[in-house]
């Protein structure tokens, strides 16, 4: 699903964010990108949905070399990716339902169908009674669930989450991780960037450890309790 071949990213004037990254993530895998702040986790995710372009090397996502994509190609790539952010990035003036439905509408789903699907997802995520609330009226955990519903509304092949539990209390963080685990069980490839080592201990998925922009180790997926 994701292949990085000796990828480097240097921010101007000469700050190396990533150096010689070699990484393969198979379809249906769940991977934690771990490492301290500034290790390059967010930059790596941004390369995957072409928010940033690699300075060197090749990034291939779902069989496409992202550097060679046209504007239309980038749009199509992003339609296959669900994004979740630490700060949720919800539109404050829209209701939870409209926030989720917007993502479906812009890729061509009819309004009624997109709202129906958004409502279905919110209900599945336990927000049935909160679908008409606007983000400022929702708790952090609720907002993150709305963001997850938005990420899922277009049935993505790949979900990228950047510090999705960063603004949540431990209980809510675990709840959010369980939602990602559910997506993974349905066959979606999930990549979660986090510096929260507690999560890595509680959820036994593959870990790629980044340090100063380089892959500095990691662990393979292991069964619970190992």
């Amino acid at each position: 699903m994701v292949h990085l071949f000796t990828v480097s990213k240097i921010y101007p004037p000469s700050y190396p964010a990533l150096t010689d990254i070699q990484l393969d993530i198979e379809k249906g895998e769940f991977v934690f990108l771990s490492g301290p702040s500034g290790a390059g986790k967010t930059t790596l995710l941004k390369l995957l949905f072409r928010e940033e372009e690699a300075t060197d090397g090749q990034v291939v996502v779902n069989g496409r070399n992202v550097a060679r994509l046209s504007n239309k190609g980038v749009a199509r790539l992003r339609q296959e990716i669900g994004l979740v952010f630490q700060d949720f990035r919800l539109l404050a003036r829209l209701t939870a339902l409209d926030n989720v439905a917007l993502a479906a509408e812009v890729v061509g789903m009819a309004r009624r169908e997109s709202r129906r699907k958004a409502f279905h997802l919110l209900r599945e995520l336990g927000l049935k009674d909160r679908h008409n609330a606007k983000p400022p009226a929702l708790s952090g955990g609720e907002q993150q669930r709305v963001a997850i519903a938005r990420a899922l509304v277009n049935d993505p092949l790949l979900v990228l989450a950047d510090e999705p539990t960063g603004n949540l209390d431990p209980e809510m963080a675990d709840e959010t991780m369980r939602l990602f685990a559910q997506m993974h069980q349905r066959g979606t490839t999930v990549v979660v960037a986090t510096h929260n080592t507690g999560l890595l201990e509680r959820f036994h998925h593959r870990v790629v450890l980044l340090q100063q922009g380089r892959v500095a180790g990691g662990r393979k997926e292991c069964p619970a309790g190992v």
Partner: protein
Amino acid sequence: MMKWAQIAFIVRRVLKSFREVFWTHLLTSGTMAVTLFIFGGFLLIQENLQGLLKGWGSRIQIFAYLETSVPAADTESLLARVNSYPEIERSRFVSQKEAWDGFKRSLGSQSGVLEGLSAEILPASLEITLKTAYRSHGALAEVVKRLRAEKGIGEVEYPEEWMEKFGLVLLGVQWAQWVLGGFLFAATLLIIGNTVKLAILARKDEIEIMQLVGARRLLIKAPFVLEGMVQGLLGAGLAVLCLWQLFVSLTSQLPASLGILAERAQLQFLAPDSLLLLVGLGWVMGTLGSLLSLRRFLKRW
């Protein structure tokens, strides 16, 4: 290819924008209306001056005086040659006798002063009227030049000074229209550009989200461009309405006859092609302003 759902999405966004920031849109349309009103005002003056010139055209004549030595047979062929000029609507031969009778008539009771003189003192002449399209100073001068080169024609007279001055006034109006119109056009583009910039900044978070979830650039841009078009068309409509009001109220205050200048009925509102030009300009201004602004500000994300 855009889907119907996406087209409906664009239309909904435009309507929503007009509802949410109605006054901003109205202000932008108003600014465009002012520009188009001034431009249209000059167009109206220019069209009416041209209309007056055409109206006076039948009275603008060239008098080509024949040399006395020209035999009658040569006069016939000269008349045929002059009549074949593409610019000429009609020409009439005025014999020496006809000229003499006319002169006497014009003197009325004082025609006695002509006693003892004969008709031969006045030359025969050609009274030439030009086709409507050639009733300008330049075309007139060109015809006169060719007439002067004709064998058998002595002097040629036409209202040269008057035509020159009128031509200058017309040219002045045209220049003012395009120069002032050009400046206003540029200024209005800037204003529209800034309105769109404000609209983009106000919706920056929404645009970012749309980009992140895979909306195509066309879908993101289209509502802004459509808003610009609608603003332009509204502005043009408003300008035409104001021009019409002004025209009606001004002409109703004029006397029915403007003396030697014109009859009031001769004054006309803008021709359909000028109205189309104004509407087209409004449309172009709105669209161009939006596109330029989008090019500048969407690149950053």
